[in-house]
């Protein structure tokens, strides 16, 4: 396969221009249309002054035109930065300031958010282009072009430029000190996973593949480039369908999807609402999940209803690109308490369990999980210190370029060679598939006037939502939880807001004078269980 992701799509368009590439609701694009629109928009970007290596921020939700925007950015040699437009302006501002985009591509839904950013001067000198046929006209934001203007540009190929080490996108994830950090992902990183996955799963042009995760999740990269690499059909899940379990099931059924890839919370949601029938989805060949631990009762529900479907657990952090290990469940788990392993490394990747001196940990022992291989990101955008802390020289190699990534996950290996996820070595949690650093929430709270001290703690609910975010706090002036919550939601996305609040005169301390988090966790755990 060719090195650059956009060239894979071009090749499919050359072979099969009339074949449907992307579908969402009533909107769809063929490979030919996708390629031509991408070429036109790439020229628009170049005309607007975008130089290779510069960033294009995508203020877009999932749509066929969002995929056109990604491909066009790559064709112009630029790097795209997907933005979660439901995030508060304060958080988006930090991402924009870090990424320094040369241009913004946006749809109407981002208008109010862009107004806020323009008003605060965050987008001074940064033109905004609309991917809709209509202009973006807000209080402050005014688009310099619309999709209707693209037709004035040539649809012919631009000619391949760039190398496989070029960066495809920056994916900003929660950072423990408060600032989101941008993971740099190269063409070679994505190609490595896609090559393994399309081979392992036997993906072909006759596949119809789900596009479920939002574009800010790196899992969406697999759906998009995996599908387009083999000339298959990508079915993006519209947000309104995603709301209702029965609509999700209906989409899998009526679109005759052959592959369903989502986060475990979605699979659990569908199970809780009993959205699947026995022997449902006759076209479906495989179900994949990634991003958090899938509760075994959910897996049993799905497997019992869909005999003959392949169920595969994928594991891996964004820093190692999409996923690094896999486990295909060989048979129905024997009980609801059976743990599903994260399995073994995908081709080109390596999972390592190392002790604190970076020596291999014995089989059966819980240790820090490291990843090596072709999926490893070059590091964090403009943050050498964080990069050095997380990406270490490979202790087994004389090559100074060889690196290992410290995941922060704790794991163990059983004698059969299977890796099992055990927990986190730090305070990162997963909720709804989102990776959340509790430190980011604490940093945001600590910036609020009136708050004296706080501790944010993740407590497992053992149920649907997996982890409840709990906040213990003490204020200087009697500020209430509802006020704090109101202020906090201006700073962090809604999925980071604590669901439980407890006020103290002083937070409990341990003998070292530090906040006694173990004690607080116990307090909240009782509450959550009750």
């Amino acid at each position, binding site marked *: 396969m060719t090195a650059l992701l956009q060239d894979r799509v071009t090749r499919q368009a050359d072979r099969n221009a009339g074949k449907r590439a992307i579908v969402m609701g009533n909107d769809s694009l063929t490979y030919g249309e996708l390629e031509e629109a991408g070429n036109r928009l790439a020229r628009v970007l170049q005309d607007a002054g975008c130089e290779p290596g510069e960033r294009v921020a995508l203020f877009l*939700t999932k749509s066929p035109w969002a995929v056109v925007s990604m491909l066009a950015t790559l064709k112009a040699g630029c790097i795209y930065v997907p933005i*979660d*437009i*439901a995030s508060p302006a304060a958080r988006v501002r930090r991402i924009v300031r870090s990424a320094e985009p040369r241009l913004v591509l946006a749809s109407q*839904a981002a208008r*109010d958010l862009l107004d806020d950013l323009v008003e605060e001067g965050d987008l001074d000198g940064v033109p905004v282009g609309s991917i809709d046929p209509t202009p973006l006209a807000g209080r402050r934001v005014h688009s310099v072009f619309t999709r209707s203007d693209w037709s004035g540009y040539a649809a012919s190929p631009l000619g391949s430029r760039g190398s496989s080490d070029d960066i495809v996108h920056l994916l900003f994830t929660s950072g423990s000190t408060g600032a989101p950090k941008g993971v740099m992902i190269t063409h070679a990183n994505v190609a490595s996973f896609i090559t393994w996955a399309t081979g392992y799963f036997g993906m072909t042009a006759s596949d119809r593949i789900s596009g479920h995760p*939002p574009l800010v999740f790196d899992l969406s990269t697999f759906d998009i480039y995996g599908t387009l690499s083999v000339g298959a059909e990508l079915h993006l899940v519209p*947000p*309104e*369908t*995603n*709301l*209702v*379990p*029965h*609509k999700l099931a209906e989409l899998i059924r009526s679109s005759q999807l052959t592959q369903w890839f989502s986060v475990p*919370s*979605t699979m659990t*949601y569908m199970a809780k*609402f*009993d959205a699947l029938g026995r022997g449902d989805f006759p076209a479906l060949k495989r179900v994949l999940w990634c991003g958090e631990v899938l509760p075994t009762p959910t897996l049993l529900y799905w497997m019992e209803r869909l005999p003959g479907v392949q169920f595969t657990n994928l594991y891996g952090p964004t820093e190692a690109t999409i996923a690094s290990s896999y486990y295909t469940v060989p048979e129905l788990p024997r009980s609801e308490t059976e743990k599903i392993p994260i399995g073994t490394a995908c081709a080109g990747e390596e999972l390592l369990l190392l002790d604190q001196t970076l020596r291999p940990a014995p089989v059966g022992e819980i240790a820090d999980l490291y990843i090596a291989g072709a999926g490893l990101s070059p590091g964090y955008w403009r943050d050498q210190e964080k990069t050095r802390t997380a990406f270490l020289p490979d202790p087994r190699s004389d090559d100074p370029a060889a690196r290992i990534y410290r995941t922060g996950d704790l794991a163990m290996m059983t004698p059969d060679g299977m890796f099992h996820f055990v927990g986190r070595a730090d305070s990162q949690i997963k909720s*709804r598939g989102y990776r959340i650093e509790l430190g980011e929430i604490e940093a945001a709270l600590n910036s609020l006037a009136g708050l004296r001290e706080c501790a944010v703690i993740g407590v497992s609910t053992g149920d*649907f*939502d997996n982890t409840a975010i709990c906040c213990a706090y003490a204020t200087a002036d009697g500020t209430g939880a*509802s006020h704090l*919550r*109101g202020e906090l*939601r201006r700073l962090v996305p*809604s999925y980071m*807001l604590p669901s439980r609040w407890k006020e103290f005169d002083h937070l409990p301390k341990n003998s070292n004078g530090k906040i006694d988090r173990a004690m607080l966790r116990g307090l909240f755990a009782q509450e959550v269980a009750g």
Partner: protein
Amino acid sequence: MTADGALDARVRRLFSETLSIEVESTDTDLIGRGLLDSLVLVELLVHLEEEFQIDVMAAELDPEDFRTISAVARFISRLQSQAVKAG
């Protein structure tokens, strides 16, 4: 204020105070803006059932009933009047 307006305001307050979702207007597209996702919806249904004494059947959920604050208010009115007829 009309009866509908009062219900709109109640739903809007529930979004703000219970779900921490602040919206510009009762016609803001909650789904298009990404403010309402599946887990928020589950939470919302629990609160709607409690506060408005309605019974929501999972299989009958229609996303369009949750498109805007006003749509949610209409949804509640509809279920309440059905309950009255049935009772």
